[in-house]
């Protein structure tokens, strides 16, 4: 529990330091906003249209495959920690799990979901 206290303090500090930098920059720098300066930056031109672009579904597919992989990998970590004391069949079960994971990858691959177009 004490280690987590330390880590909690460290996380709080690592939020504090960049925040401190930002505050420093805010107070030490000049502040003279004008409409042109605070406008959206688009290579010096006026902004064209709404700030909305129909993004490609591609991004969702990558995030989706990543989600599935992430969950399965989290499952694998306890298995890897226990690995040294596992009998052969338990190792094989882990391997079957990995193969199912690979099957997911192969499906997404064949379907073309992983091809950037």
């Amino acid at each position: 529990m004490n280690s987590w206290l330390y880590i909690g303090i460290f996380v709080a500090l690592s939020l504090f330091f960049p925040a401190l930098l930002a505050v420093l920059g805010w107070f030490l720098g000049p502040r003279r906003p004008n409409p042109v300066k605070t406008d959206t930056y688009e290579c010096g031109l006026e902004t064209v249209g709404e700030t909305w672009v129909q993004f490609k579904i591609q991004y969702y597919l990558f995030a989706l495959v990543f989600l599935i992989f992430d969950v399965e990998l989290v499952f694998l970590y306890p298995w890897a920690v226990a690995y040294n004391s596992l009998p052969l069949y338990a190792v094989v079960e882990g391997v079957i799990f990995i193969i199912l994971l690979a099957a997911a990858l192969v499906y997404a691959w064949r379907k073309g979901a992983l091809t950037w177009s």
Partner: protein
Amino acid sequence: MTAMQIVFILTAVVTLFAALRVVTTPNMIHAALWLIVALFGVAVFYLLLSASFLAMAQIIVYIGAIAILMMFVIMLTRREMRDRGPQTGPQWKWAAILSALLFGGLVWMVKSVSLPASPVAEVPESSIADLGRALVSPNGFVIPFEVASVLLLAALIGAVYVAWTRRNS
């Protein structure tokens, strides 16, 4: 009041406030960000319960993957940067009453049974290795373990099939 209890109360306040913002804020991206705060609070609860592995898994799976996926979908399925108008349906009053009733009922139930004030034992050092062994032992959870893998495979196939058509580009 011990230090643990103070941490607990702080976490509970932050988590519940964030959860309330998730269900009330009109801006969907803000709702997703508040959801991340709430999920982080839940991860702190897991730490307080000495389930450090699940706390990390909570952050990796929920914040690192699910919340990002949700933000992607929110940004993919909207036409303007800012959401306008009320985001709740006309039935919100009934929903509030029902939720309050449910909460009251649950609290009454929790209060009416006698619950232990402290754990029966400490969590063993080897709890993660135990979990790993239990997940692949035939007397433990090997069937759920492999079925979960198949479920995730099925979810991936289903989701890719539903969301992905050749025409979308």
